[in-house]
């Protein structure tokens, strides 16, 4: 390769900086400073300064200590959130992979089912998801738990689940309590899983579409059954996407508007004005979830197969 050509290629590649420049600016001027600032807050007592900005006094690890050893409400939600994270990620991944395969089959009415499956992605997010299951509105305005339970009872009456409730009571009375509880939890989870797998299905589906048809044809000629070609072709070729989907599922978990942990952190920060303490809480969550993510990614990446190699 002549040096001229090399220079030309270098210049062409350097042009990439122009395209990613906005992203670099964003990370350097907004994202990175915000991360550093938040970390600094977590070691301080922070109070707003009328002149603009905040005043801080150093506390050492007191905020972290308070979150982990003193604040029972936080600790409980913290542990619940982490357990849910570990429990839900594999379920969502497996479910969305199966669904993506089902929706990738050729059958009548496929477009309609695809359209339905993406409804939760399009309209079931943010405030809608928040309102669907919990009493966010009441919590937000401090009307209190008793009023909200009453409202839930009222809304379940309106929604028609009252009959189910009485049936559950009846089955419990028959001594089938544990069994029925198990079924209910499973159904509850199924609803959660279905409504939180939309984007993952999308990503898997696009990966399945990217598997070259020629490979299937070749394997058919060689006498491979559909079952075998699924394990030997589909799965390895889709596996790189598994990592992407794992990351996305965990990210989604962080952004879950229904998360009690997020709610408690927001309350602490903005309603109670404990900026430093709130920052310590969120860093604890971020760090431990990051550690879990690293472990999961490590495990997943060992199963991943790269076609290029």
């Amino acid at each position: 390769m002549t040096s001229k050509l090399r220079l030309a290629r270098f210049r062409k590649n350097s042009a990439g900086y122009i395209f990613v420049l906005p992203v670099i600016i964003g990370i350097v001027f907004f994202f990175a400073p915000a991360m550093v600032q938040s970390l600094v807050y977590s070691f301080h007592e922070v109070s707003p300064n009328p002149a603009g900005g905040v005043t801080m006094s150093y506390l050492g690890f007191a905020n972290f200590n308070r979150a982990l050893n003193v604040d029972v409400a936080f600790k409980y939600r913290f542990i619940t959130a982490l357990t849910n994270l570990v429990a839900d990620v594999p379920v969502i991944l497996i479910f969305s992979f199966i669904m993506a395969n089902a929706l990738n089959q050729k059958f009548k009415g496929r477009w309609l089912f695809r359209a339905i499956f993406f409804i939760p992605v399009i309209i079931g997010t943010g405030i809608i998801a928040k309102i669907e299951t919990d009493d966010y509105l009441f919590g937000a305005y401090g009307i209190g738990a008793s009023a909200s339970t009453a409202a839930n009872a009222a809304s379940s009456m309106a929604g028609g689940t009252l009959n189910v409730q009485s049936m559950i009571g009846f089955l419990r009375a028959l001594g089938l309590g544990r069994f029925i509880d198990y079924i209910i939890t499973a159904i509850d989870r199924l609803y959660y899983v279905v409504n939180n797998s939309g984007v993952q299905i999308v990503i898997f589906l696009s990966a399945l579409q990217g598997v070259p048809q020629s490979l299937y044809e070749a394997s058919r000629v060689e006498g491979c059954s559909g079952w075998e070609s699924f394990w030997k072709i589909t799965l390895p070729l889709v596996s790189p996407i598994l990592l992407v989907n794992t990351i996305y599922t965990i990210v989604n978990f962080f952004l879950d508007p229904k998360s009690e942990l997020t709610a408690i952190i927001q309350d602490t920060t903005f309603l109670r004005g404990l900026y430093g303490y709130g920052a310590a809480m969120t860093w604890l969550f971020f760090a431990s979830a990051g550690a879990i993510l690293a472990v999961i990614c490590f495990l997943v990446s060992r199963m991943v197969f790269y076609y290029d190699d």
Partner: protein
Amino acid sequence: MSESDMTEAKKNPLSQTLLKKTGRALYLALLYTIVIGLAFLILYPYLVKIATSFMSLDDLSDPTVRFIPKNISFYFWQRAAKGMNILTSFGTSLYIAGITALLQVMSCAFAGYGFARFKFVGRNLLFFLVIFTMLVPFTTIMLPYYLKFRYFNVLFTKLNLINTIWPNVVLSVTGLGLKNGLYIYMMRQFFRSMPSELEEAAYIDGAGLFGTYFRIMLPNAFVTMNTVFLLAFCWQWTDTTYASVFFSTKPTVVNALKNIVLVVGQDLAAVSSLRNIGTLIVMAPLALLYAFVQRSFIQGIERSGIAN
């Protein structure tokens, strides 16, 4: 899930063909059972919401009325529409979500192209950082972001940008908005799957860097950009994370929905019905939008085709 193959079966003896046919039928039955069941699970809450929304106050407290209202009434719809100030809140949210989504599509396509096509030094590190920005819970950077935009430094003057559209504009342009990492990823995957001959031909014909991008690459990326726009718009429309910090007092649909409960007072059946209808009102434009563009949306998903 295996793919049974009809063409091969035709070559086999009759009994085997029959076996394969039954297998295929059973398999389809299983497939439809699963798919229909789950579709019902998804649609059920929406159907119940719609049915309940037309019930009068009497119907709501009548235990014999379920799903189908006895007296169809638009009373709660009227009250909800009034309480939510529907024109103002739709206008405000349309303005915020529309501009934000548009900027996000443009900036994410721009960055996605850079990541897909140029091997500059530090590309992998930077792309990792993009994914990393998605990974950080918003609560971590919420307060610093708030302070940044509350006292935004422009030429040594501190401006208060909270409750204006500017925080969203700034973050969207720099690829830091709501789930922008995902959009950058999607755009990058799309551009990677495009044949590079197209660009080379353009370069040989004398098109410059931007000429190639805007005239050759972008028009081809239309379907994927459509998908990204739809996601960005819908997620911004219902957003409660960024919006809770930046638009706390703007009359958006989200805030209107929160306020509707305060308007009503104590009657709990009425509160829950209004809450239902409020949710439907917020969802309605998105459902309508999705109904129109769903085909192209699904196409776009297929074509963000992860070629790897």
